């Protein structure tokens, strides 16, 4: 009796393990006639959960595509899993994506450290990693053809910030408040690389931690050094704290904020007056732009996530997703011909594509540095609490 039971149990286990392991099919993982599985790790909970907006933005576009009938009749199954912005969770989540769920590609995930944690593994397994929300140099300069970075390196942006401070605002001395993480450190790298080129002096660089309650100590110190221009490599909440403190101390130097701090949240949290006149770099148009792509984004977001206020971070996901579906549309229709490498090649065929939120997408051949989805940056200025387009002299 007992033996029979044991046999039964062992058989069940074996059967279960076979079904679990052996889901290999004829075609590429994650692709069937009906569906394509794309996976994404997102900080849905935890300390960085406001960045989950990126996942929501991507989700909006895929939902819209599915409603229109999908890509070649295949619905996009966009699977988002919470990694809490904790790299050790990301490793588990991504392993699951690749080995258990057989995801076709990792699309529109978020986070510098989470991506750094899994980028080796993803590329070793030859899985495309498309449009990750990270500006850390390690990820953007990754020597693999499977990596498609979303937006320009923070290093490039850092260089642009200095140029803007010098050529637009005539600053000779600048101060920098930065987030003590890869984003901030990459910005510093960029800023410092061009100081001599533009003849600008960096008089103070002060870090802040993400869980820091206020930045008064840093602001007091920087104000005392009286720089001509202040640069802020800050996330929206911390940018808002900076503006509040700056207003309190009556510090008048012009401020330039990086694009990941560009959000209506800054104005909402710090108040109109505090932010008035500040410059922000951006990789998209402002949400209130009359551009039809932007209007479509705003209305789709309202449709699928009615509680969300449109924001640049939504656009990271949304715009990246648009590029992904464009590349999927360029793949052969036969399921048997769809492979991960084919997707890479398909992405590399995109030239001067204007069908999405990004004004123009051109993806080169080669490794990550050739693969940026977004290359251009533009500028905004806050006027009456709203973001207005600002065109620097050198762009005119």
């Amino acid at each position, binding site marked *: 009796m007992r033996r029979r039971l044991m046999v039964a149990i062992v058989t069940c286990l074996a059967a279960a393990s076979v079904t679990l392991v052996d889901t290999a099919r004829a075609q590429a993982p994650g692709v069937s006639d009906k569906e394509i599985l794309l996976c994404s790790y997102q900080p*849905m*909970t*935890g*300390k960085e*959960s*406001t960045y*989950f*907006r990126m996942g929501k933005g991507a989700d909006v576009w895929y939902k819209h595509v599915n409603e229109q009938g999908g890509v070649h009749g295949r619905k996009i199954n966009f699977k988002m899993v919470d990694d809490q912005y904790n790299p050790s969770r990301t490793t588990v989540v991504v392993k699951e994506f690749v080995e258990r769920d057989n995801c076709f590609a990792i699309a529109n995930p978020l986070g510098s450290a989470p991506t750094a944690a899994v980028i080796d593994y993803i590329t070793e397994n030859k899985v495309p990693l498309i449009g990750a929300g990270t500006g850390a140099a390690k990820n953007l300069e990754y020597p693999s053809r499977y990596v498609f970075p979303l937006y320009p390196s923070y290093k490039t942006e850092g260089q642009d910030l200095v140029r803007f401070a010098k050529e637009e605002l005539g600053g000779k001395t600048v101060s920098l408040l930065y987030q*003590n993480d890869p984003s901030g450190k990459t910005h510093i790298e960029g800023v410092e690389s061009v100081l001599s080129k533009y003849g600008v002096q960096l008089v103070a660089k*002060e*870090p*802040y*931690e993400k*869980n*820091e*309650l*206020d930045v*008064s*100590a*840093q602001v*007091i*110190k920087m104000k*005392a050094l009286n720089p001509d221009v202040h640069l802020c490599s800050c996330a*929206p*909440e911390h940018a*808002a704290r900076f503006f*509040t403190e700056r*207003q*309190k*101390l*009556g510090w008048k130097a012009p401020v330039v904020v990086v694009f990941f701090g560009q959000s209506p*949240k800054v104005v*909402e*949290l710090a*108040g109109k*007056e*505090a932010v008035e006149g500040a410059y922000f770099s951006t990789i998209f148009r402002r949400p209130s732009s009359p551009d039809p792509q932007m209007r479509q984004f705003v209305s789709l977001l309202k449709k699928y996530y009615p*509680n*969300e206020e449109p924001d640049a971070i939504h656009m990271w996901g949304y715009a990246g997703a648009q590029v992904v579906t464009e590349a999927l549309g360029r793949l052969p229709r036969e399921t048997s011909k769809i492979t991960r490498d084919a997707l890479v090649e398909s992405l590399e065929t995109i030239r001067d594509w204007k069908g999405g939120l990004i004004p123009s997408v051109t993806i080169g051949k080669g490794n990550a540095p050739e693969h940026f989805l977004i290359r251009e940056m533009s500028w905004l200025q806050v006027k009456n609490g709203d973001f207005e387009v600002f065109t620097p002299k050198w762009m005119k």
Partner: protein
Amino acid sequence: MLAQQIVSGLATGSLYALTAIGIVLIFRNTRTINLAQGDFSMIGAFVALVILEHSGGSLVVATLVTIVAVTALAVVVERLIMRPIEGSDWLTLFTATLGVFYILHGVAGWIWGRDTKSFPALFSSAPLSIGGTLISQAHLFNILVAAVVGGILYLFFRFTKPGIAMRAITEDPVAAQLMGIPVRSIVLLTWAVGGVLAAISGILLAPLVYVSTQMMDGVLVKGYVGAVFGGLYSLPGAVIGSLIIGVAENLAGGYLGAQYKVTIAFVLIVLVLALKPRGLFGGKARREI
């Protein structure tokens, strides 16, 4: 700059103080390190925000409703979760409040989402100048409230019957029971007072640190360090400890470098405890906890 750094540090420290008081209060009478104290404030901030949005902006109404709601929450936590395990070792009690922490975090994220929300400022953003140093009105008000609450609690513990009873329970709960002090009711009252403090703290902090599920994460840890600085049993100690941390942070941030700012509190607490194992105001050894 020195004076400004100190004043700003005091302002930040005062944000920690109410949380530190709440922690000390509950710890003294129940041996519970309440990890959920910050989340009580967080829930309070959200409740206040909801009321403000629906009641046409009356701050007084919002404050009162929030105090009632958070106090009720604290009472529910005591009755449903802490009372069944009363008398357990402090580590078990501590872990239970961790469970409360998870639950409240989850519930808040579930109901209100994970976005940071703004909270209407109670005061104009124009700062006050005191002898050349600037302090925002909101911070000044926060310091005043912390001082008033501290004063009220001091009088409460010194002169009222329930207040002295709370101290008696801190000393010896069994003897207190034998004297006819309704220990359970007083413990419940302690949690309720903790809830009131958390609600006030939540409303005061909301315009400054904005409203989100993790708004109190930074405050909470510093609140503990402040409480332990002061010896974990002493209310004035908790306030002074919190202020010391605020100032030390700003001085470290201003003179050593901002990367030392968040660290200094932890280095200080390790050093202080190594030299004074019961904190700065801990006095003589008490019953082992």
